[in-house]
């Protein structure tokens, strides 16, 4: 199999970006990516665009809005979609482009423009990422699905609301150190626990943000990567897994089968195990999701996720630092951009460019990105050498 490396990264500012449209957000990220890599679009063979919602982009074919605005036509570009994991699906597609020999240099773009719609509309659109026929009639929302996972996890393993809140405290702390984050504000445990209930038992601070933002990466084949960059970061393992549409049909309500399948594949391909990972970004769309991810990724035993955060093992300096970029919780979660943003954070960490958030000597990193309430999951493992 051909080796594929990351040679350029570009991260736009995440937040309520009422100053910019979808295509303008992408321009910022692509421009930053060109500056980082020294590569111009002339040298790029092909492009992949990750956008999750048609409703958010106010029209189908958001990928065309994007390639038109950055002037990429007539070269290949198309859209990839996997709900909240859209960005990782785009990265995987970019990898496939190169590994198959179709292209040598690929631009992967992820973007979402979510805040132009009111929260209730955004909630409705995302809620229908569940089963629109059989679940939605009961008023289900995204926080609602994860709230049901939380209640099951609490009943089975004694996970507490305080442990959930501790995830929020950590991610807000790191978000406060990340200039690209939407909320650069530390919070107290007290504040998290007393915030209003969104879907019982999840409260405001258990939820990720609704965000506008874009991120871009340039991938290259081994030969090209070495000629473009002094320190390419290699994609060493990829995994993807899926699960039933409806929560009730899952084998387990306290674990995401899609993630476990994806993890197995990615670890195997990279020839590493959970204890080899120096730094990870996990899908913390809700605090419970990060706790479940600790367990599904093998960072702790099943049911021990709450204790792992309680012991601060997922802080920098702990056993396995997770989401030290602020995560979806505080950096923000523009659906299509999130997976790309995760890979950018790991690239920075492995390059040693993460400033105050740097994990010392990080060599192997992992991203974990879940679509919907666990219908699809993507894992990528990255290496410095």
């Amino acid at each position, binding site marked *: 199999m051909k080796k594929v490396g990351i040679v350029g990264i570009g991260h736009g500012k995440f937040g309520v970006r009422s100053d910019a449209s979808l295509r303008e957000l992408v321009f910022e990220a692509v421009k930053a990516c060109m500056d980082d890599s020294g590569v111009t679009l002339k040298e790029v063979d092909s492009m992949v665009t990750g956008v999750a919602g048609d409703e958010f982009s106010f029209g189908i074919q958001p990928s065309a809005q994007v390639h038109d605005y950055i002037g990429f036509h007539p070269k290949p570009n198309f859209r990839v979609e996997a709900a909240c994991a859209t960005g990782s699906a785009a990265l995987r597609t970019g990898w496939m482009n190169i590994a198959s020999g179709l292209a040598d240099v690929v631009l992967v773009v992820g973007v979402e423009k979510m805040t132009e719609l009111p929260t209730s509309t955004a909630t409705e659109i995302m809620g229908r990422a569940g089963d629109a026929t059989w679940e939605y009639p009961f008023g289900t929302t995204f926080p609602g699905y994860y709230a049901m996972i939380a209640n099951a996890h609490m009943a089975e393993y004694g996970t507490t609301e305080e442990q959930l809140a501790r995830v929020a405290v950590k991610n807000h702390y790191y978000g406060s150190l990340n200039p690209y984050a939407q909320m650069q504000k530390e919070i107290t445990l007290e504040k998290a626990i007393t915030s209003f209930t969104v879907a019982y038992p999840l409260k405001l601070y258990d939820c990720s943000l609704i965000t506008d933002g874009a991120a871009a990466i340039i991938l290259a084949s081994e030969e090209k990567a070495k000629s473009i960059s002094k320190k390419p970061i290699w994609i060493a393992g990829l995994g993807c897994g899926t699960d039933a549409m409806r929560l*009730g049909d899952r084998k387990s309500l306290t674990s995401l089968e899609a993630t476990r399948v994806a993890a197995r594949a990615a670890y195997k391909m990279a020839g590493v195990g959970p204890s080899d990972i120096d730094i990870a970004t996990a899908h913390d769309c809700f605090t419970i999701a990060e706790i479940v991810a600790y367990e599904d990724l093998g960072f702790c035993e099943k049911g021990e996720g709450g204790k792992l955060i309680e012991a601060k093992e997922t802080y920098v300096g702990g056993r396995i630092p997770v989401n030290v970029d602020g995560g979806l919780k505080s950096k923000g979660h523009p659906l299509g951009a999130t997976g790309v943003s995760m890979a950018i954070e790991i690239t920075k960490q492995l390059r040693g460019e993460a400033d105050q958030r740097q994990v010392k000597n990080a060599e192997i990193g992992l991203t974990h990105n879940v679509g919907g309430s666990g219908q699809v999951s993507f894992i990528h493992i990255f290496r410095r050498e």
Partner: protein
Amino acid sequence: MEFKNFSLFINQTKVNRFADDLAGGKIMSTLCKKCGKQYYPPAADCSSCMGSEMEWKELKAEGKLLTFTKIHVPPEHFAVRQPLMPFSSIQFEPCPIGIIEVGKELPIMGWIPKMDIKKIKVGMKMKASPFALPDGKITIVLEPV
């Protein structure tokens, strides 16, 4: 009866009859005639053997509560409009929902209108029944047994 009276938006499916039966007081599943696999929600096709010959079967809709929640920030369709009277507000008290497991791995989702969220516990025994709403829609409610 239109299937939309249950699903709210989607109307065109091969299992339309589900809504009629629900209105008639029955929660129905489908059963694959070839391999015997049972489906709830009902499916018109069997993913186990790829057959499409199904028969309808009523569920004895009792089982353990798998999980639950109470959604305070609802989607637009369910959202409360603010009153037109100035300086006024409407108190919104949403209804909890849950999923019970019936028989072997058949999950039924429903509203839990009669219970305080703090009293709802995973594992409690509940039954599901059809419920006709005042606006002509038809849904499912769960209550402890």
